């Protein structure tokens, strides 16, 4: 029974699932990205770099990629700041508050992305609550709209991404030996120093893995950027969507998606290498 083939046999159901539903679609997208497209004749199965060259030489696509990664980076930054603090405060709460607030934090994940985003759209509009509130408090005289702005996209994305950050940091906080805090105090550290020199370094791997997750999810988010950002502030996923379903230029859409995937892989692998090099010796 315990032959070298046993592990393969045991993991084959998962492997087959992975192959059929993940590798195969991505593989076909990869193939299609090399196909040729013309408006009259549609798609032709050839082998050309035309689509990639078009993307890499057109400033229009540069802007879309820059917007996608810029927004993803700012969302990640906001999530690191908010999520880390939130997780730390949560971990110091006592029951029943701890459970209650954990539910509140994870709440955004329980609501459909479209409902949640349309909710933000109601708040963001020029007649929305935010605009009316700012006018009532006298910060502005004219209505303010966050619809179709990068700021709006960042706020709405941060709202849904923070839970992922909180979960990652929360897990790291649970692994901390609470006595290390007491030890640092007894050695003369102030509460702030304890957080800065003892807590944060210990949860840094958690923060980094949360950041990777948030970055990847934000860069590939579709619904929120396309509803709040609209057609003018497209990101890569919504541009690819448009190429596929509006222009019917599948090869160009596939090339857009492949370039996003490659860029994401580079970011993920680089971040992982960094964590391993920095913390390999610390956490076995």
């Amino acid at each position, binding site marked *: 029974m315990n032959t070298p083939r046993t592990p393969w046999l045991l993991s084959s159901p998962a492997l087959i699932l992975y192959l059929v539903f993940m590798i195969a679609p991505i593989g076909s997208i990869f193939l299609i990205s090399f196909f040729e497209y013309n408006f009259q004749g549609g798609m032709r199965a050839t082998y050309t770099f035309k689509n990639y060259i078009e993307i890499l030489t057109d400033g229009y696509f540069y802007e879309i990629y820059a917007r996608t990664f810029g927004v993803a980076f700012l969302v990640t930054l906001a999530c690191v700041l908010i999520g880390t603090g939130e997780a730390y405060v949560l971990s110091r709460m006592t029951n029943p508050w701890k459970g209650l607030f954990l539910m509140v934090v994870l709440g955004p994940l329980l609501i459909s992305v479209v409902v949640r985003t349309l909710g933000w759209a109601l708040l963001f509009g020029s007649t929305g609550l935010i605009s009316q509130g700012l006018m009532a408090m006298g910060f502005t005289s004219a209505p303010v709209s966050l619809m179709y702005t990068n700021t709006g996209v960042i706020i709405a994305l941060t709202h849904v991404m923070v839970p992922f950050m909180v979960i990652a940091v929360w897990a790291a906080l649970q692994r901390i*030996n609470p006595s*290390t805090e*007491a*030890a640092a*105090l007894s*050695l003369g*550290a*102030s509460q702030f120093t304890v957080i800065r020199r003892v807590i944060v*370094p210990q949860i840094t791997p958690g923060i980094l893995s949360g950041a990777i997750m948030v970055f990847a999810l934000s860069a590939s988010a579709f619904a929120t950027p396309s509803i709040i950002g609209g057609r003018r502030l497209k990101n890569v996923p919504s541009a690819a969507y448009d190429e596929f379903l509006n222009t019917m230029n599948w090869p160009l859409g596939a090339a857009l998606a492949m370039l996003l995937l490659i860029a994401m892989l580079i970011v993920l692998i680089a971040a992982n290498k960094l964590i391993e090099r920095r913390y390999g010796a*610390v956490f076995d």
Partner: protein
Amino acid sequence: MSYLVLDGLTKQYGSIMAVDDLHLEIKKGEFVSLLGPSGCGKTTTLQMIAGFVDPTKGSIVLDGKDLLRIPANKRGLGIVFQNYALFPHMTAAQNVAFGLEMLKVCKDELSSRVKETLSLVGLSHLADRFPARMSGGQQQRVALARALAIRPSILLLDEPLSNLDAKLREEMQLELRSIQRLVGTTTILVTHDQSEAMALSDRVVVMNQGRIEQIAEPYIAYEKPETEFVSGFLGKANSFIMGVRIEGGNVFGQIGEKKFPLRDTKLSAGKVIIRPEKISFCLQESAILSGKMKSRVFQGNHWLCQVETTLGGVTVIQQNDGKEIAPEGSEVHLNWKPEDMRSLNA
């Protein structure tokens, strides 16, 4: 003069008295153990001294200063935690240096004190290693070095050896004692291990249910326990009810059927205890108690015997001096010197 004075120290959690009106005076340089079963209040006492728990009542005075008015991070005490609580993201040397950095010790002095302290605990060669790559004993030493590096006014040890295996624990006991002698820091050890407390300390404070049962030197506490709890917690003890009668001007004690002269012993009628190692096997004529050998367990340097008598089970420890021991099931006779017994204050 006393260096650390705990006076009327009390900690109440709801209706539970974790520590109940504790009085304790510790001299400078002394090594004192708080000994007791779990839940006896020893750890709570330590945490009140450390400043992690606020007492309900009472005072803690260190060298004339009221400690309760000083926050935990300004008390300057060295603490070694049960699970070491090393900073996992720092090397051994960085762990030791942490407290010195908090004291804003200048760079040259810092590195020389880190080196000095690490060599004191015999870890100079592991200065740059992370805790995850060290054995339990080595982590224990780093924790000790980290606490000692700040030259604390008091060293608090919270069950520091309980996570080590038996052999390593004995080694660390000897080493802990010699390091403490060398640096002369006043030390308070919290432990539930009576042999550890006796091996290490100048005085043992035996605690039970938040109260002090006895404060004494280890030898005295073992030989002259004041309460039944102490006698049972420090080693093994057999207890009997002894009657006293006077016949012809001589005082006799009586256990079961047997009478024996008490002479100058300070024994009084009531509960008495006798340590198992003070009992010996003898011939029938001189026996105080007789019974049947129920079990005998060989433990290398001694035999641990259970004898079933008319007054209940009696534990006897017999040194392994090469002589044959009565087999299980055979009739045996026990005898001991009346002066080896202790009366307990009921």
